[in-house]
């Protein structure tokens, strides 16, 4: 493996990430920008690139909800995405986005 690549796992699959990559970028290079499902199952990906929007949150080395755009890759790092299960359910009807009372 060239020196400028780092071996990691993305959803269990081996991937060679650029050495300077953040976990978010590594996952996008491996799979595309659609990395997670929103609370109603809409496809989402990183938005702000600086840790503000939380749209890039992934499970990294077993720790869930990590802001992956702030975390540099390390050899052996395991990144798990939360992509919508195909077929992607895209819900836009207001009634379906109702949040049940606690």
């Amino acid at each position, binding site marked *: 493996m060239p020196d400028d690549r780092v071996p990691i796992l993305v959803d269990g699959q081996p991937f060679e990430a650029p050495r300077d990559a953040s976990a978010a*970028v590594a996952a996008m*290079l491996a799979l595309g920008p*659609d990395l997670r499902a929103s609370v109603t199952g809409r496809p989402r*990906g990183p938005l*702000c*690139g600086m840790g*503000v929007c939380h749209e890039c949150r992934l499970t990294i080395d077993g720790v869930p909800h990590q802001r992956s755009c702030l975390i540099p890759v390390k050899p052996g790092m395991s990144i798990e995405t939360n992509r919508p299960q195909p077929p992607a359910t895209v819900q836009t009807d*207001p009634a379906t986005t109702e*949040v049940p009372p606690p």
Partner: protein
Amino acid sequence: MTDHAADILVVGAGPAGMSAAVRAAELGRSVILLDENPAPGGQIWRGPTDEARPWIERANAAGVRTLPSSSLVQPLSRGAHLASTPTGPVRLAANVTILATGSRELFLPFPGWDLPGIFGVGALQALAKSGYDLAGKNILVAGSGPLLLAVSAWLREHGANVLAIAEQADPAQIRRFALSMVRWPSKIRQALALKFALLGIPYWTGSWPVRAEGDTRLRSVVLADGLREMKVQCDILACGFGLVPETHLASALGCPVSAGVVQTDEFGKTGVEGVYAAGELTGIGGHEKSLVQGQIAGLAAAGREDLARELLPSLAKAKVFAERLAETFRLRRELRALPAHDTIVCRCEDVVWSRVKANASWREAKIQTRCGMGPCQGRICGPAVSFLTGWEVADARPPISPASVSTLLASTEEMETS
């Protein structure tokens, strides 16, 4: 819990925080510089660029202690804060805290804006600097402000195919601004006049995105200019409508915030004893203003207002430029009509526009719909809803940054023992 103490704590390692830390440390003060990112330089520099390197070297030479990849979670008592670091929770104590939390991009909702493949403008540059290879990608840049030009030029230099830039501001406004730039020989002028003309990327003023289309990813964007619509096929949309001062921490510390910006005197004093603010959170003005303000705050916090005073004329000049920027890139009212009834406004909780606008206030919308109640704490939808409705949108309550339960427990123990 680990303790770190210093004369001065600086929050944010961008131009303002970095220059504040350097000037204070060079006067012999002990300084801790904390930032969420792994590399110093903030969002504008992101690491040791040519412009950042001298400041980073001076910070090292002056003995500034840096805490990278760390977030300030909440204030504990006066002068003490709970921070989360890669090695666990830390208690930071300082006589003076200088807030240099910068700004974030303003995102406005339009149908399809939540599709993967749509990023902020600064965001796309940040991701590219973190290894996102954009060579050969078809990129449309849209929104408002000088950042569109600077980032487009940068993307083009790095092999991306920038299709066009859609700037919502009026052509007449932009022309007046470009002419006035003669008086400000700054980076932005360079972006406007030089690189941009040389690169020949189409610059469509008075044009804005009204719709994004795709499946699980972005495939195309529809632009409008008030008369016609035009569809642009693209892989990526970089879209931002300007910058929003990051005031959440300042609010949590009790600093007065008015019209979305932290209020300070000329030296950066906030009105809360021992708390200064410098840079974009005191008003958007670019990194040149931030560098001046940071130095002023750093010198003043170290007790040398006499030295700080020498920089006040530069600050006055930077502020005139900031006003000119704000005037030129003022957002047009048509953008308020962009969200459809079923457009997601709050991305964290998937709350649609029809549900948000049925309320009378931000507070009511939060309670009734959970808008702004997700992980980002309204940092994305808050400024958008404020623009769409005119509502006053309150800053988040502590914890200011996401923290693990163990970190928060450390803060409770701290309070019980103090």
